[in-house]
């Protein structure tokens, strides 16, 4: 195997490893409550704002 082929293969493996690390995190890690709470809070603020505008 010449150097360019070997380097190309190694670079592909780097990408695969990056995906494995971050894919693993995305698949397995639960969404922290702080973000679910934040999204719920933002939604509630929108609803409250709409209600005020309607009044």
């Amino acid at each position, binding site marked *: *195997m010449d150097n360019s082929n*070997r*380097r190309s293969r*190694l*670079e592909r*493996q*780097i*990408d*695969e*490893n*990056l*995906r*494995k*690390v*971050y*894919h*693993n*995190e*995305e698949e*397995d*890690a639960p*969404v*922290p409550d*702080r*973000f*679910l*709470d*934040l*999204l*719920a809070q*933002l*939604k*509630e603020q929108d609803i409250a704002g709409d209600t005020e505008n309607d009044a």
Partner: protein
Amino acid sequence: MTRKVPGPADPRDEILEHLQGMRAFAMSLTRNSAAADDLVQDTIVKAWKNFGSFQQGTNMRAWLFTILRNTFYSAKRKSNREVEDVDGVFAATLSVKPSHDGRLAMKDFEKAFALLPLEQREALILIGASELTYEEAAETCGVAIGTIKSRVNRGRAKLVELLDMSNDEPMELTDNATVAVITAGLSVRKNIA
């Protein structure tokens, strides 16, 4: 306790689908789990309040990553605490010893990745891990497509160099447990001194 989660009809609900990807990208920028989650929180608030600027039918992940990245660099300019290593001068002074068996240990990979200049780390994460197109990554970073390609290529090449992968042994992450360790490690690791 009943948790209110945005209803399915709201297009902003899609933000939730990209949350872990945003956390991973934020981690690659900040290399600190607390700072990364703070950055994601700021990004969510900005995205929510400026959702009107999002063009339906385009890649929301790329749009969110752009906000996240802009937020990061804006805060970084303000604090100006982290020393830039754009040219990789610091990284060039360090090396990572290869594993004895030729396989890429996760710790080695983590250390090598952390040594890359910030611009190369983000390019590799956007292209290699987040699966954005080169066009989307270029737009996210506000640079030309060729610049992103160059950063990705230089980042990969630097990793090969740092890991001294000069033999033909396969390079792969060893197992899921190790993956979990490095994922956690990415959460807490600070700049290598």
